[in-house]
């Protein structure tokens, strides 16, 4: 074949896909800018803070109030104010302080707090410890402590793999769905089918262009979150590339299936939202899917986005190697095979 590489139909089709994409500035923002902005926003909102100070009040009745407040102040995690009995009661009611301590009887101490609030119970434990130590109580058993604040267990570490999963899903479903239905609506698909164009090459051009764009999107998102927040990548590069690739094929298949019959943008939008909504909610993008009832867990686990997110998290945060992720990969491969098979069977070429 003396044909120039650039004049091959597959090369032409793929290059057309890129041109259509890069000449749409909004699309560039949604695939690159949006996930990064979201990661930055969430990273700031849920950044790791120094341990919280617990606010408590000492009710100012009697001469023992001063020494009681001093005893409490010795614990640095307590912020202590001395208030009149009325103000202390008001502060407790409005939640400005978690606990009110006041002298009681000859040498006793009385605590007032809401025992249903975890922070109030916490305040009582700390305050009582400070009071008892001030009165001379010591530790009976020796204690050793180590503080663990490691990258990988923060909220940002949880959410970045979720955002990557969401990007893969959105790219596959929107990237294929809208473009194909738009071409069908404008009779361009019919015009292309009237040429000797290979239908396999036409579909391949979408898959290839999506994979290349996704590689860039994933690199940008992971690079930015590693740089800005130190989100770890504990698994091998080959493993994460494989997970992304298999996920991209599954969502590409789903996108193709959703686009296989629709003749209007409205129609395909409805289908796409219908299929993506359960995954946005259930698949553990922003919070763990373990929070949902046990009875629906098998359904959740069968969703492709759950499989993607679980595999990405296990690999990125815990460095779990590919062979141990076979259940997630199997779910994704099953989606890929089923979606492509059905889509190609029912695809409307006119």
């Amino acid at each position: 074949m003396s044909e120039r590489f650039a004049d091959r139909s597959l090369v032409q089709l793929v290059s057309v896909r890129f041109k259509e994409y890069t000449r749409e500035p909004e699309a560039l923002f949604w695939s690159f800018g949006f996930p990064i902005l979201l990661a930055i926003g969430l990273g700031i909102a849920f950044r790791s803070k120094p341990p919280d100070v617990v606010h408590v009040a000492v009710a100012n009745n009697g001469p023992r109030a001063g020494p009681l407040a001093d005893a409490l102040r010795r614990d640095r995690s307590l912020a202590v104010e001395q208030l009149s009995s009325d103000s202390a009661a008001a502060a407790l009611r409005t939640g400005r302080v978690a606990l009110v301590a006041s002298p009681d009887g000859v040498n006793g101490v009385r605590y007032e707090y809401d025992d249903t609030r975890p922070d109030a119970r916490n305040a009582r434990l700390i305050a009582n410890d400070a009071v008892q130590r001030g009165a001379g109580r010591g530790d009976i058993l020796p204690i050793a402590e180590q503080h663990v604040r490691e990258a990988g267990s923060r909220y940002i570490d949880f959410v970045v793999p979720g955002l990557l999963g969401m990007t893969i899903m959105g790219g596959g479903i929107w990237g294929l769905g809208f473009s194909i239905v738009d071409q069908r609506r404008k009779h361009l698909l019919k015009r292309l089918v009237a040429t000797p164009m290979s239908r396999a090459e036409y579909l391949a051009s979408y898959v290839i262009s999506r994979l290349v764009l996704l590689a860039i999107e994933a690199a940008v998102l992971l690079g930015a979150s590693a740089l800005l927040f130190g989100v770890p990548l504990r698994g091998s590069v080959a493993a994460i590339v494989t997970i992304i690739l298999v996920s991209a094929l599954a969502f590409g298949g789903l996108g193709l299936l959703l686009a296989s019959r629709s003749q209007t943008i409205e129609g395909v939008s409805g289908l796409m939202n219908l299929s993506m909504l359960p995954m946005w909610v259930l698949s553990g993008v922003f919070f763990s899917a373990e929070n949902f009832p046990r009875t629906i867990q098998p359904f959740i686990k069968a969703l492709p986005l759950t499989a993607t997110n679980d595999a990405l998290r296990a690999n990125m945060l815990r460095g779990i190697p590919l062979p141990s992720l076979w259940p997630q990969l199997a779910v994704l491969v099953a989606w890929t095979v089923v979606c492509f098979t059905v889509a190609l069977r029912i695809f409307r070429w006119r």
Partner: protein
Amino acid sequence: MTDALLVRELRKYYGDVRAVDGLDLTVASGECFGLLGPNGAGKTTTIEICEGLLAPDAGRVELLGLTWQHDARALRQRLGIQLQETQLAEKLTVEETVRLFRSFYDKGRPVDEVIRLVQLGEKRDGRVGKLSGGQKQRLALACAIVSDPDLMFLDEPTTGLDPQSRRQLWDLITDFKAHGRTIMLTTHYMDEAEILCDRVAIVDHGKVIALGTPRELIGSLGAEHVVEFALDNGAPPLEERTLRALDGVRVARPLAGGWELQVGELHRTVPALLAFLAERNLELAQLTTHSATLEDVFVSLTGRQLRDE
């Protein structure tokens, strides 16, 4: 030499609607053949079956001696197609679009040459979305000819265009014809068919109701001219019999609000008509004449106007 296109007993039904109902066509190699008819006559269904985009319910279609059942791949390589109302990708440039279509064919013409032929040289780097209607149609034509096809299908190539753009397209099509290409086009513009086509088939309700050269068809009326007139409101109704008795009138036919007379010679009929009306004190509200066209052939065959706008 084999015919470029052979259609026999073609049928395509959509439920109760008989879009194509036993249609026969033969198009010779090198011919420009027109499929004429009102909207909904079955022209597009017929041409899309010929293009291999629709499967017929019954009938035989042979193109260049090949059939869609056996030689689909080879046929696709040899046809040039322009569909009705295809919107090409708006984000691509003219050149990118033609280059994409060129890439689908094993052989064809150079992209630059095709762009120059359809006079889009100045727009070659312009986005498709920014082209005018006429320019878009010429680009669609460029995509049809880039494969240097043996047989070209053009479905309503000038619908919706301004007169100047139509004329430009006619020139292009005439040019391809001069190069010995076989062309089959559909149109509901009679003037277009008269100018471009060697032969036309008038199609109505999925059947061919007349076939021949434009000259033959017009000649079949037996009348070179058409006189249309209307009387003032309130005038007593005229009878066909009395009008047909006028000098030179071949056919008299009532129209909405008036009459149509098909006549051999205007200079004999018009004075006779005026004298006839003056004799009865009838006032003319309107009087027009024109040379007989394919439109009149259609009206005379079906009793309906081609375009019932």
